[in-house]
């Protein structure tokens, strides 16, 4: 073992911690803001007892869940029952390895970044299926089946939407995709790829099993879906993984369609210069927060889809839309149309 290798590994570990810790903190306060935002939308105040304006509420919840007993149903498959939340969490965290936060601010700047993210996200569905099956409960099993069907369907729509992005950017590398959108607000991909942007974002909501696509949990139909038998920390891990995925997909939507860390005022006289001092990651965080707010807004306003409606939307509406728009993007790129592909 040479010193150089230990140094490299140590430096990578430092970077991993520098990504994971802010992600966990964001998860914690996303939960708080979710309860607050939905509370205000429903004319309530939300949590306001623990700490100043309830700011310590997520910590109180976390400590409570930590000290609760993790019940393992006697007729469950014990090994898989314990492993399932770990798989979900590992997949949710592993995807962060290739996410760039600014020019060069990335743990692994790999060429196949988009593919890596899709591959790792597709592993997350195993946690849910295994949880549903290992619990040996009918509600959990129904939730797992619904979830796997939904996630596979929307992964296809999302994959096709990303085909449009990579055709426009000419790269699978996340940093290069952002760099291809340079030139201010009107040069971002949300305009030429508007249908794909909508499909991608709605698929993101469906991929994370959030309302109005939360048929995998559907508390009015199947109690709590795939995690009905989970308690204490095992349940908390599922919860954390769901929020980590939400943040990841909000960030990816910002990277793919909203110019990532690029300033929206780039190239605009006066405004561009005034805001030139703002560092890139700040813009990325602001854009991510916008999408995260959309998640909360959707949850507070939309009723849950019926299962057949979810399937119809994915297969009969979104996939054909993406297929048509991929051809349009191909023509746009081939003939160098507009300010985007010239």
């Amino acid at each position, binding site marked *: *073992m040479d010193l150089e290798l230990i140094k490299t590994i140590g430096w990578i570990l430092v970077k991993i911690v520098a990504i994971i810790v802010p992600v966990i903190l964001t998860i914690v306060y996303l939960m708080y803001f979710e309860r607050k935002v939905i509370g205000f939308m429903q004319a309530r105040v939300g949590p306001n007892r623990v700490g100043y304006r309830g700011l310590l509420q997520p910590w109180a919840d976390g400590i409570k869940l930590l000290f609760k007993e993790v019940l393992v149903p006697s007729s469950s498959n014990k090994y898989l029952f314990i492993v399932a939340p770990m798989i979900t969490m590992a997949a949710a965290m592993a995807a962060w390895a290739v996410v760039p936060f600014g020019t060069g601010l990335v743990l692994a700047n790999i060429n196949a970044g988009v593919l890596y993210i*899709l591959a790792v996200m597709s*592993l997350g569905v195993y946690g849910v299926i295994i949880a549903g099956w290992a619990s040996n409960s009918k509600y959990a099993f129904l939730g797992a089946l619904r979830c*796997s069907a939904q996630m596979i369907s929307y992964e296809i729509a999302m994959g096709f939407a990303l085909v449009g992005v990579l055709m426009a950017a000419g790269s*699978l590398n996340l940093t290069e995709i952002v760099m291809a959108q340079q030139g201010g607000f009107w040069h971002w991909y949300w305009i030429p790829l508007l249908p794909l942007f909508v499909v991608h974002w709605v698929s993101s909501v469906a991929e994370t099993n959030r309302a109005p696509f939360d048929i995998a949990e559907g508390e009015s139909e199947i109690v709590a879906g795939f995690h009905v038998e989970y308690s204490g920390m095992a349940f908390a891990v599922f919860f954390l993984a769901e929020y980590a995925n939400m943040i990841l997909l909000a960030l990816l939507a910002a990277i793919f369609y909203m110019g990532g860390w690029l300033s929206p005022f780039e190239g605009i006289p006066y405004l561009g210069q005034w805001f030139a001092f703002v560092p890139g990651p700040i813009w990325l965080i602001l854009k991510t927060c916008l999408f995260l707010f959309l998640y909360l807004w959707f949850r507070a306003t939309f009723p849950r889809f019926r299962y057949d409606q979810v399937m119809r939307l994915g297969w009969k509406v979104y996939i054909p839309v993406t297929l048509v728009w991929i051809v349009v993007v191909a023509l746009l790129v081939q003939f160098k149309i507009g300010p985007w592909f010239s």
Partner: protein
Amino acid sequence: MEIDWLKFFFYCYAALALFGATMVIFSRNSVRAVLFLVLTFVASAGLWMLLQAEFLALILILVYVGAVMVLFLFVVMMLNMNLSPLKEGFVRYLPLGILIAATIVAQLVWVYKNTDMAALHLGELAQKPADYSNITELGLALYTDYLYPFEIAGVILLVAIIAAIALTFRGPQNRRSQNIAVQVATRKDDRLRVIKDVGPDSDLKA
């Protein structure tokens, strides 16, 4: 001692793949067998990654692990198979199994013996720089030199899809499909009748 990390990871993934493949056969529970098959795929993806075929490795995970095996698991979980009748013929089919295994091993040995390993330039294969994109190379090869085979393979897959649908399609009888356009176009007035004034002799009055 200098450790060859490439070899180290190769043997890790290879051992994992072999372990997974063996457990697929020997698992008593069919769901566990499918999960071990998933493990085998992931380990194989790791091996391909070591060969610098990151596109193929990620596609293996995306397509086989992320979609095909999920559908497998879906079916196997719902079937709730009893494996004991399947295990009964173990001894009876053992000679045939050994024969097939021996044939495959013989083929492998024959290919290995008859290949000039030095002519393959194995050392030169792993000499690409880190920013080398084999996705671009693969795309160029598929859409220029091998365009026709590639498109024909796509058409064959399409035929298979249509065939599967045609086999399971039971015709238009006994189908109760929903007309989504009608559902969406429904307004409140179609479903709800508001009775404002309830007279004294109406039976609606409590």
